[in-house]
């Protein structure tokens, strides 16, 4: 078989991507990268509680190494594109795999978070796009946006209750998404052990809740005037 000319299907990468298991592996790895970003972003954002000077300096520091910034952006953007493309293709496949729906179907073991990944995902994507337009490009959501005045922009943006609530709801969905995703990626990459998988499941819940509380603390603090 080794002498056969390689077609598209004989290309190992194409075949890996072509299988559901391969797509899920890509989703697991990109999910891990995005989870790492979310953790770092959350911890960085908490510096807002150290006051305007520290927070603005942190923002300046992030942009001080353009190469690093663009490298991170490219990795993150590639991860998002792969993660979303794989999930869309898997949803389409799922529809084809059960053309006739059940008259009655019960879920008896799965978590709410795991069954709603296909809903939480797209809403989080919509949120990320809005979030970038709001705080990175300053196109919408911040009445008096000023490039580099990060602290002011955050306070001004979250000063509007509707925008703060949209942010909080999105973070709760992110919490759900991570609650399933963070342990599920281990399963997808082949790690499952009766001793460690329960720890991974609980760890995923813990991380998901910590991430959500960390992010939500900021708009809540702005709304209550603790950060102004």
């Amino acid at each position, binding site marked *: 078989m080794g002498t056969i000319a390689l077609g598209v299907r004989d290309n190992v990468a194409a075949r890996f991507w072509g299988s*559901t298991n391969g797509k899920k592996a890509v989703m697991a790895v990109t999910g891990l990268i995005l989870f790492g970003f979310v953790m770092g972003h959350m911890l960085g954002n908490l510096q807002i509680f150290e006051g305007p000077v520290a927070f603005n300096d942190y923002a300046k520091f992030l942009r001080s190494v353009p190469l690093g910034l663009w490298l991170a952006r490219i990795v993150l953007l590639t991860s998002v594109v792969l993660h979303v493309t794989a999930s869309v293709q898997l949803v389409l496949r799922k529809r084809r795999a059960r053309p006739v729906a059940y008259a009655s179907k019960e879920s008896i073991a799965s978590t709410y978070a795991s069954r709603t990944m296909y809903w939480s995902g797209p809403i989080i994507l919509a949120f990320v796009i809005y979030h970038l337009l709001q705080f990175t490009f300053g196109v919408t959501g911040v009445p008096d946006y000023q490039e580099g005045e990060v602290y002011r922009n955050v306070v001004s943006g979250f000063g509007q209750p509707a925008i703060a609530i949209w942010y909080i709801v999105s973070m709760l969905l992110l919490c759900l998404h991570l609650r399933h995703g963070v342990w599920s990626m281990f399963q997808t990459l082949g790690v499952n052990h009766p001793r460690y998988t329960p720890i991974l499941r609980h760890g995923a819940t813990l991380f998901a809740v910590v991430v959500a509380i960390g992010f939500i603390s900021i708009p809540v603090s702005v709304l209550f005037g603790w950060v102004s």
Partner: protein
Amino acid sequence: MRLTLHVWRQQGPRTKGRLVRYQMDNVDHEMSMLECLDVLNEELIGKGDEPIAFEHDCREGICGSCGFMINGVAHGPARATTVCQLTMRNFKDGDSLTIEPWRASAFPLIKDLVVDRRSFDRIVASGGYISVSTGNAPDANAILVPKDIADRAMDAAACIGCGACVAACPNASAALFTGAKISHLGVLPQGQPERHLRALSMVAQANLEGFGGCTNIGECTAVCPKEIPLEVIARMNRDYIAAALSQRDAEVNTIRPFTEWSTGSKLVNDPHATS
């Protein structure tokens, strides 16, 4: 015990089906679900109606022939049972049961509650084997297998291929079945020579058959009559990823999916046909 059954009736693969209501006034709580359908079928035959088609064989939960959805749960409300082991004492007087066949494009419907599960056979045929030398029978215990490994292989081998995992999965994925078959041979020393090719081939066949992808939600293992754990899916993924990354040639064994039946019409036309 009085029960109302809503059973999926469908004449054939290409006709339209619907749920038909049957009232049963005399259900014994010691009957199994299949015996309940037997009683209903006797009644239907007595009235000159067509009986409900359902698959069954051993009626002791080890052959994997029977299975359908009862009120949205594969094999009904009792854990770790097939519908033939499900006794009617799991239901209450006056209950209403909705009975539907497994639903998946890889399990095309044949009639009523009977679906074509040959896609499972093809997954096994593509890689569910080991190579053995011919000649004299080898010495027993020539290859040492630790007890815990033998137990894990046996746990995975307990899969009877009933299809409940696919039926319960919101993605109609065959991950639990394929994982069980890959694990059962893959953990044993005898299964090592084909381990990578097996993972590649069986995964490729499951994908070819049109099953969905696994989202690790765990509905499959909850309805599995043999309680196959999700661990087998992780093992399949591990073997598949390792095989895909280390593979040196493009060798994969798959079988073309088919839905036609070879015997039926041939028997009518050819009196000398033996099968």
